[in-house]
């Protein structure tokens, strides 16, 4: 049992993180062409709405929720100190979880019932769908059966994750958690490890800089004003052709 715990909560996280980092950086640097969300809306443009939209908003909210609970545990606990606020947070999160599950199921059904989509679907897509559905179901299960996860995540799991990131893994608490929670943690690291090998990689390149970018972009191959000064016709920098 101890060996298993050691593997799943020490070895697996580190393997996943290393694979994620190295793989993503490698693909970003050398395989830019493969960085794509691989949208299939062009081949099927109606059913996608009922899958993609609920899934993406759900997963964004839940991902940020987990991230905030990890980064700011004290603030989350302070927020949860009043039962009403705790209820609001938990119910919202649960609704987003359901939205994510509905979206995923719709996406899976859409992908395997639309003949055209078969030709832009690979095995990894199925693996990712099933993993994400598993992960969402586990999450909802935990939220329903082990109430007030936002609070106990901050007290139990944040220290564990911190211990992973500070390279002093401490799994005494994690190894005592119920099986569903353990599966949820394992699922999370498996998904992280699969990011460089799947279309999930597109979440690393969200177009955030679009918000402050000017609309128009003009690019030169060279600093055009430096190229040539009409006053010094024989300057070192010769005029470039364009």
């Amino acid at each position, binding site marked *: 049992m101890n060996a298993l715990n050691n593997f799943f909560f020490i070895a697996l996280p580190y393997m996943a993180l290393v694979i994620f980092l190295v793989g993503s950086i490698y693909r970003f640097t050398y*395989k*830019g*062409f*493969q*960085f*794509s*969300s*691989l*949208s*299939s*809306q*062009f*081949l*099927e*443009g109606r059913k*996608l*709405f009922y899958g*993609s*939209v609920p*899934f*993406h*908003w759900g997963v964004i909210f839940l991902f940020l929720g987990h991230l905030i609970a990890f980064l700011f545990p004290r603030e989350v606990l302070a927020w949860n100190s009043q039962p009403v606020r705790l209820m609001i947070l938990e119910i919202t999160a649960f609704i987003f979880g359901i939205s994510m599950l509905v979206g995923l199921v719709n996406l899976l059904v859409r992908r395997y019932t639309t*003949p*055209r989509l*078969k*030709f*832009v679907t*690979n095995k*990894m897509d199925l693996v990712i769908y099933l993993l994400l559905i598993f992960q969402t179901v586990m999450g909802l299960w935990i939220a329903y059966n082990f109430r007030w996860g936002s609070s106990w995540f901050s007290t139990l799991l944040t220290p564990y994750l911190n211990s992973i990131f500070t390279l002093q893994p401490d799994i005494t608490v994690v190894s005592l958690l119920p099986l569903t929670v353990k599966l949820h943690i394992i699922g999370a690291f498996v998904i992280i490890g699969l990011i460089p*090998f*799947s*279309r999930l*990689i*597109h979440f690393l*390149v969200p*177009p955030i*800089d*679009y*918000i402050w*970018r000017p*609309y*128009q*972009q*003009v*690019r*030169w*191959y*060279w600093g*055009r*004003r*430096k*190229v*040539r*000064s*009409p006053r010094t016709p024989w300057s070192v920098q010769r*005029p*470039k*052709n*364009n």
Partner: protein
Amino acid sequence: MDVRSQISMVFHLDKCIGCHTCSIACKNIWTDRKGAEYMWWNNVETKPGTGYPTKWEDQNIYRGGWQKTNGKVTLKGAGKRRGLTNIFYNPNLPVIDDYYEPFTYKYLDLIESPEGDDQPTARPVSLITGKPIDIKMGPNWDDDLSGTPDYGRNDPNLKNLSAAEQEVMFQLERMAFFYLPRICNHCLNPACVGACPSGAIYKRGEDGVVLINQEVCRAWRMCVTACPYKKSYYNWHTGKSEKCILCFPRLEAGLAPACMHSCVGRIRYLGVLLYDADKIEAAVHDDEKNLIDRHLDIILDPFDEKVIRAAKMNGVADSTIHAAQFSPVYKYVKEWKLALPLHAEFRTLPMLFYVPPLLPVMATVKQVDNSDQAEKMNPIAKYWDDNWLYDTSTKELWGTLDQVRFPLKYLASLLSAGNEDMIKDKWKKLMAVRIHRRRVTVGDVSNEKADETLREAGITAEMADGIFYLTALAKFEDRFVIPPAHREQAIEMLDFTGDTKGEVGFGIKSKIRRGL
């Protein structure tokens, strides 16, 4: 003054014969790949018709281009707020059925079928699924007014025409059409660039070519929505958007783009325009009726000393300025004011200009007596029993302008944002050139009459001769004035893509593999 140079184009619609050679040249070079089969970076449409993708001009459907609301110019169907909130599902994205499902035929069945009572047939199969399909749509499905009730009648440009005017247009005896070849306009205010969330699309400063960086494109597919001309295409296989690259590898080597080089009717002209980038913003924000004037105002006179000095300050090479001075595009667009941008009301400032068609629209037929001719002919040979000929008499020229086979409104909605006088003005010039040349070559037009028409059209005899030369006699070097690129740079910019032909087509040398 921020002077930049732009490789710009003029298409002379009077000369287009609708042979689609340009489309085929382009397809063979750039889009004969998986996922790109349905793309026609260059396509030729019959007008009136719904075009490709179907009804692309109707922005109530496709939400392309910019719109001006309360003095602010924003993207109609994309942009920062709309683009980012719709990123998971783009409600305005055309799907493949709006273009057509690419197909081929099972030709091998013709050869390999076993002997039987029936002739073997080559069934159409989808190029996406490989399964047999019923073809519902294909490239140039509405060519030469075929399927007019479904296509020609639904042309979005007809929306301002009364029912009676439309009826007249589609009377069998009066029916007329012309061709509209379209490529990417390489706009000055490109909507696709503005809409790209990942910043993959950019306009090259040196020559104004608008390109999509295939390594940065993330398939957010907003450019497809934003381009009002629907000239940005989504490759469903690679998950990247693609568009016309104005054959930049050819341009850099001093060659004309493939579609232009192969143009049988020689309708295409390509040359440098110098423009003032500082004026773009004000022009884009102006009222719809002023848009074309402001657009032409951006284009600078390459002979002006001030312009030349400012251009050199900006690093525009002498050879480029020289090319700008000999540019056929400058002559058509600015000197003679004969060419107009397509759908200026989309506010993208397209840098591809069209000379409006005169002949198919103006020409009427009249009954003539052919008996003399017919008698001379060998009765076994072709017998000319048709007594109707094109009426080329020019006496009632200005009178017939209002009785053209196409309502002026139609062409105005296509080429001048609704301004009918602008089209009339071009037609007068085109007709005046014909009358002037008839005086010179045939001599049956009086000098007074010819001079008067020229004066009324606002051009001189020298200009008319220039227009005639560039329209009718122009050689390859006259039609394509491409500024020379330094050879060493051309090599640097262009990798040899022959090795990976059929897989890439963008100057990327590595093998293209779809994302996982």
